[in-house]
């Protein structure tokens, strides 16, 4: 039987199931096949904070969304074209996001009376006509898997476990994904359990064959590879890119990396990743608490290391005092905040941009800290190097504001040439700088205002630093009013004077009257929304802030150039507050704090409203 093949330019798939169903793994493997095939892609994992919520319930639903295309894309997609629902809970939790006409592949085996009751379905939606506006493919995934594996010496339970691979096989057929890769992966993952490896591979192939032979699927789809810029690519998540960026920063600064960290969602993966790379001379220290994590990093920095601490919002709150100590002792330090929904514990696995004002101002005293925010998962690599560059050059703590969306999302990353990475090394101070061979630890570089970085082990430069106010130059304890005023202003001037690149505006025709500005992880949805507006003939300019402190020198001038400035943020208007105060520009805020990234369609609507109101 020859089946019809239909060409598509892009597809959004969402795998959804119980936390124990292996949906993240399924999504990862589909992503790997898609990356290998050469599509551009973007992913959005979404999982509960509970490790195993009660099976079959709505809080236990875990999902993985993947957007892939034959052109460059910017987001994991607004609404899935296909939902794979492994049980009734997965269907119910995700149906609201599914546009009419989308495909639903439902595992009928799990639509039992009990499972339906658990999520409040009186009758099975597969059997009443409540899903008539969607294209439902009812597939007994579990029993087909068990049947495919009946020749294996496996318990029924073990066989059932491979149902996610059956689903992966089916979807791989449906979208013409290469299979070799997944087979190799399964062989490696279960190298020590060859029987399990074989069973999973058999389930995967059975899923593929099911698609090929069953009449339930008459059409398969092809999405041609994307024409991306030439180069070598790999798929990478934000946390992994950030960890690699820190390693690169260590190499490019010629400073050994010391990570002091305490496990916290969604930042822990950076600790996990860095702990794998000890051969780079990286010391990873799992501290007793958040405070010790940053304290140890600062101690290591005093000793000449590239000191880093990684955390999420609640951890930043605990580290504030030590960051203040780093500000006043003027030592390099990188504080990575992978933001999550707050306040307090909030929603640990959900994303938010609500720590901006804490990063900027959440310390006692006048305590300026540079802030850098990556704009995409792969940009976490460059942003980490940039944070390190500023920290080392200006001897200052730097906040690096990632978030849950960037951390766990992934996209293809064109690998940089190592030779193109910036040299961010700085010399330690080894010679005295005062009269008669004395050393003045707070005598500054006239250009950068950075103080000397003289590390223990350097003869003749023994000195004492601390949290008490220091006399200009000597660094001796000082309570002199004029000196304090001078030091407060000098520390502020040092940060204000950091060399950050000018903002660039994307305005193809140069005649837009509305500017949309964002920062951090909202870049993708904003840029996708801007594309939609332009496609429809609308005029809108876009710019994006990567440096939140200091702001680029031309920020005010750009804001004032437009009739209207729109600023979408996943908070209640934190950057808007800042821009309004600093530049007296009537910034229009658009805010949602749902623990989820913006959708492109949603933002396109908001932009259109602003354009319309400008007529």
């Amino acid at each position, binding site marked *: 039987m020859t089946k019809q093949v239909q060409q598509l330019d892009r597809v959004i798939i969402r795998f959804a199931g119980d936390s124990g169903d292996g949906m993240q793994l399924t999504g990862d493997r589909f992503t790997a096949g898609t990356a290998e095939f050469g599509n551009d892609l973007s992913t959005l994992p979404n999982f509960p904070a509970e490790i195993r919520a009660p099976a079959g319930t709505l809080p236990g639903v875990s999902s993985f969304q993947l957007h892939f295309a034959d052109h460059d894309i910017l987001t994991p997609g607004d609404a899935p074209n296909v939902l794979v629902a492994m049980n009734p809970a997965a269907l119910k939790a995700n149906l609201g996001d599914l546009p009419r006409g989308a495909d639903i592949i439902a595992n009928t085996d799990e639509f039992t009376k009990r499972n339906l009751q658990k999520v409040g379905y009186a009758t099975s939606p597969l059997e009443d006509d409540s899903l008539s506006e969607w294209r439902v493919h009812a597939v007994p995934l579990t029993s087909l898997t068990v049947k495919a594996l009946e020749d294996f010496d496996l318990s029924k339970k073990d066989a059932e476990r491979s149902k996610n691979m059956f689903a992966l096989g089916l979807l791989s057929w449906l979208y013409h994904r290469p299979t070799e890769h997944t087979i190799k992966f399964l062989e490696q993952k279960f190298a020590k359990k060859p029987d399990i490896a074989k069973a999973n591979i058999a389930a995967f192939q059975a899923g593929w064959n099911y698609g090929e032979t069953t009449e339930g699927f008459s059409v398969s789809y092809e999405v041609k*590879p994307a024409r991306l810029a030439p180069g*070598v690519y*790999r798929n990478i998540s934000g946390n992994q890119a950030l960890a690699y960026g820190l*390693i690169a920063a260590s190499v490019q600064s010629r400073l050994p990396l010391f990570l002091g960290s305490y496990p916290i969602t969604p930042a822990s993966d950076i600790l996990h990743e860095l702990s794998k790379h*000890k051969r780079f001379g990286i010391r990873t220290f799992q501290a007793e608490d958040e405070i010790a994590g940053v304290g140890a990093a600062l101690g290591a920095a005093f000793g000449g290391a590239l000191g880093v601490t990684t955390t999420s919002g609640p951890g930043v709150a605990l580290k504030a005092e030590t960051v203040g100590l780093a500000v006043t002792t003027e030592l390099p330090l990188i504080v990575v905040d992978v933001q999550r929904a707050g306040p307090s514990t909030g929603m640990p696995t959900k994303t938010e941009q609500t720590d901006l004002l804490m990063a900027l101002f959440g310390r006692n005293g006048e305590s300026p800290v540079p802030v850098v925010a990556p704009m995409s998962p792969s940009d976490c690599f460059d942003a980490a190097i940039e944070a390190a560059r500023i920290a080392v050059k200006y001897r200052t703590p730097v906040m690096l504001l990632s978030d849950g969306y960037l951390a766990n999302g992934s996209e293809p990353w064109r690998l940089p040439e190592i030779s193109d990475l910036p040299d961010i090394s700085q010399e330690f101070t080894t010679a005295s700088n005062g009269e008669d061979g004395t050393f003045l630890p707070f005598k500054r570089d006239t250009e950068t205002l950075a103080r000397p970085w003289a590390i223990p082990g350097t003869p003749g430069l023994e000195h004492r630093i601390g949290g*008490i106010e220091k006399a200009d130059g000597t660094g001796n304890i000082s309570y002199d009013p004029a000196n304090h005023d001078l030091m407060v202003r000098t520390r502020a001037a040092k940060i204000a004077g950091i060399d950050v690149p000018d903002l660039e505006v994307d305005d193809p025709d140069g005649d837009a009257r509305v500017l949309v500005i964002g920062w951090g992880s909202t870049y993708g949805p904003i840029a996708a929304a801007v594309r939609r507006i332009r496609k429809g003939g609308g005029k809108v300019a876009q710019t994006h802030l990567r440096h939140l402190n200091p702001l680029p020198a031309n920020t005010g001038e750009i804001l004032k150039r437009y009739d209207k400035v729109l600023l979408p943020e996943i908070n209640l208007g934190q950057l808007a507050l800042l821009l309004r105060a600093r530049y007296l520009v009537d910034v229009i805020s658009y805010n949602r704090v749902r623990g989820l990234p913006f959708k492109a369609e949603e933002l396109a609507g908001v932009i259109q409203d602003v354009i319309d109101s400008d007529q």
Partner: protein
Amino acid sequence: MTSEPLFASGKTSVNGKGLSLVPKTDVKQSLKDFKSDQEVRWCPGCGDYAILAAVQSFLPELGLKRENIVFVSGIGCSSRFPYYLNTYGFHSIHGRAPAIATGLAASRPDLSVWVITGDGDALSIGGNHLIHALRRNVNLNILLFNNRIYGLTKGQYSPTSEVGKITKSTPMGSLDKPFNPISLAIGAEASFVARTIDSDRKHLQSVLREATAHRGTSLVEIYQNCNIFNDNAFEQLKDPEVRDDITVRLEHGQPIVSASKAVVRAANGGIEVVARDSVGDDQILVHDAHNPDPSVAFALSRLDEPAFEHVPIGIFRQVARPAYDTLMAEQLDEAAARTGAGDLSELLLGGDTWRIS
């Protein structure tokens, strides 16, 4: 110029003792070399002066390069200590000195790192960092100045103040049971635990000698007099009339005795204090600081309850255990030996890649 990569860790992974990884000086040093140019600003009569002088006159004995010595402190009267020493110094924030020193010592085994802290700093706000530093066994010398009062905030009770202490914050007497720093340290898996007194320079220096020879974390509790807010807290230990009877000297391999008392095994399995002339020499407990089993050391730390009847002074526990910084360096070496030194290009190209031309 020391901006050569500090990646090389090979030289650090030796099973060195004490400060064997810290470079030595050829130059003869004296007390004067360790005095900074800063005016010492403790209250006249403060026990800190005696400790500072003892440390300054002890350091030349180590013969270390001065630039390889770092004093890290928290907050409190004692924490001003680093300013007065002509070494590298870091006066940090309240309670956090052990954490900061851990990062420094773990990444720089070529340094002699000291933590100067007080009873409030180490046992109240910094209690968590202290216990974890002790269990990790990073190569640190922690000097805990215990004056059983908050001095810098002007006289509130501290976590070592006796129950019922009348202070500004406890006009009807404090309610909380104090910590016993020695018991706490032994419970926290410390490999070196000692107690000494500010006024007994000879004993203080003998303990420092052993503490610096110990590779790993050493905790030295120093009874220190605050003559403003808690004067004479340790007077019995200094009073020539009674001190020899009260002070129970702990010396490894020696019977545990004071002038008039002896420590023996009790019938209930524990230990007890008896009149020295009531028992034969063979019944007196011999001190074994190197005993892997901490139970006797722990019992000795509880000997002095109620306080100041018979106070053990000296080294309670001194056992060999790999230092954290050594183990950490060994893992770096092992990783490099297994797969070669890190190569950034190889790292980025690792995993699944594809080429678009």
